[in-house]
């Protein structure tokens, strides 16, 4: 994802003749699309196995809560990206930190949901629920780790104006994780 930051590229590829950014952007979008298909398969399986019914009562307050937290973290991620693009490193870092904390809060929320779940993985809804939230949480956790790396690097002044692709790409990944949840939330909690 942070493909561009590897200096080995400069000498390879067309380097100076055309910019790497559009190429990287296309690559990361294709990655998102491909990953989205995996999530789509899981969501489709959920409907295949249990129809459009919701066999268990879920903790709606918790669901709405973690959904709001994740949605809000997209805003902070957006603000961080915009700030870095305009050289406002201090604000950018603060917003990154907020994103990281909210991401962690989301993961903890999912973990809590798992601990209070009164269904088991071998139950048909449990099958869908645990594999979907588990797969998504794996992406959230890896996203948080990536964001921490970006946060630390930003502190060392690695992302001056015009060289913020690493921030942009990680923030895009974060939004992607949010988009997946945009579909998973109604699929698991509301239908």
């Amino acid at each position: 994802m942070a493909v561009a930051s590897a200096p080995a590229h400069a000498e390879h590829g067309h380097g100076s003749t055309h910019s790497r950014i559009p190429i990287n952007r296309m690559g990361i979008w294709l990655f998102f699309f491909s990953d989205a298909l995996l999530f789509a398969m899981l969501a489709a399986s959920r409907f295949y196995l249990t129809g459009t019914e919701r066999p268990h009562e879920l903790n709606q307050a918790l669901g709405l809560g973690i959904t709001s937290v994740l949605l809000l973290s997209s805003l902070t991620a957006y603000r961080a990206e915009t700030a870095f693009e305009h050289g406002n490193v201090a604000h950018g870092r603060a917003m990154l930190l907020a994103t990281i904390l909210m991401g962690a809060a989301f993961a903890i929320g999912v973990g809590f949901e798992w601990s209070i779940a009164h269904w088991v993985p071998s139950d048909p809804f449990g099958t869908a629920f645990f594999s979907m939230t588990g797969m998504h949480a794996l992406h959230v956790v890896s996203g948080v780790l990536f964001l921490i790396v970006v946060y630390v690097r930003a502190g060392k002044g690695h992302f001056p104006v015009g060289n913020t692709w690493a921030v942009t790409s990680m923030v895009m990944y974060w939004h992607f994780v949010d988009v997946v949840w945009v579909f998973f939330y109604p699929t698991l909690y509301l239908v």
Partner: protein
Amino acid sequence: MRPLINALVLGIAGFAFGAGATGLFRVAVLGREWWSTDLSWSMGYPFALIGWVMGIGGWKYWGRGWFGLPVAPYETTGWRRYLDWNIDHKVIGIQYIVTFVVIFLLSGLTVLLVRLELMRAGMQILTEDQYNAAMSFHGITMVAVAVAILLGGFGNYVVPLMLGARDMAFPNLNSLSYWLTPPVAVLLLIAVAMGGWDSGWTAYPPLSVVNKSGQTLFNLAVFTFGLVSILGGINFIVTIAYERAAGLTWGRLPIFVWGALSASLISFFFTQGFAAALLMVLFDRVLDTSFFDFKNEGSALLYEHVFWFYSHPAVYVMVLPGFAIILEILAHFSRKPLFAYRWVVGAFLGIVALSGVVWAHHMFTSGMADYLHAPFLVLTEMISIPTGIIFLAGLGTIWAGKLWLRTPMLFALSVLFNFTIGGITGIFLADVPTDLHLHDTYFVVAHFHYTIVGGEIFALMAAVYYWFPKITGRMYNETLGKLHFWIMFIGFQLVFIPMFEVGVQGMNRRVADYPAEYNGLNTWITLAALFLGSSFVFFAWNMAMSWVRGPIAEANPWHARTLEWQTSSPPPIHNFDEDPVITGNPYDYGQPRAAAHARLGAAPAAGDSA
């Protein structure tokens, strides 16, 4: 050797970490045995994979950059480059080709064991268990070879050259894709050593859920391979979209680039289906979910839908680059423009589109709803229309040409013959009334070997001989090449034509034993298979000897117009001394006024006279 040793050590350490942490959790929190084969492998393997990739050089040359640390300068030269992290697409192409040729030969030897067992009814040299393991191993390794060798091998080597690019769009990602494949092979071999898995390459649950632990390793391996396929596909799509030389419009792309693009689109769109299917089986095995457990309202048909959603399109990942290569070779060796170029491009894209809506023809006998039969019959048979266009292009190209029958051309022509049989017999399987009888019989085995071996592996051989001088800088031995061709071509017909008959007669596939009525044909098939196998002795000998001490090849021994032949053999590190400018069509033979395909810098390109 250093990188390999590093990779092995870090890989094993990673495995110990993952499996160890899991064991600790099991002992401390759950109070169970620390080791559970399925779970320990599933948790250890991802870390082993990370360790392996980091050890081979992924960390040193790439990963450090992610953390803002300086990456090491690349200093490896000579043959050691092939055992190291390397971002040159030519090195990666050779890595793919050699790795998968070795796996191909290994898998070929395995299937000879299978054939020897099937020579007579009754069990002779293998037990049922060993038979199933050998048959499953042959299945998955050959599928992997077929998916990866043309696109990963020749695609990597040739596509950037044809585009006039200095490398792929994501060179480090490219290296990562390649270095993910050795763990796949290792894992499959360990699975065989652990007693194998007996669910074939399709791994249908519930069998694959209740199967022995080799199945877990199979799933992890093939999941990794799916990742290779997706990352490779993304890399090709972006490369072809962004790295074309000046003047190389979509209408001037060599047809092989279109083939690589179509195949990449398919692997990019559909591979997640296989990944999801394998993941669900893995969840069922280790996490106690019940996707496929009918006692808990799971459904075996779910797997078949998700699995074939990828695995049918996968056959076009195999044959589309094959078609593209033979069209390329037919044009150059007939000295004629590729017939109906734009129609072929349309046919490729048509196949890409249709490939996604035909999967359920593998399920006519699966017990899926009756109303699905007719639509999938119609859609599947429609694939014959774009395929027919590709045949028109092949036949139109050789008509009124000047056919130069070197080994690559012989292989290319044989694809037209083989795939005619493969294509026509495919209709029998798309047609529900005949498929109800033929499904899962040797008719199917014969059909897909005619399409995949006849359509792709013959094209692979054409590609190997065609680009051998470019890749190695040396010429192969023509006599040995032709000997290889004739033995392989004749042996292939002798093996697979009788399989159609024995299948219709009532011999089903994936069996270790069969009624004695089918003895005669099976003995014949086994003997013919040994004959077919012998052709690869000539192949391996020719390749090894010619690579080491064949005569030095010219830059453009075939006097072909396309760009890869306009640079030296083998090409310099950045492919071209000066960035090429594309000035004409790639196949304008027989047209004295036609512009050259490319101009290299200021100097006129070699082969302009053509």
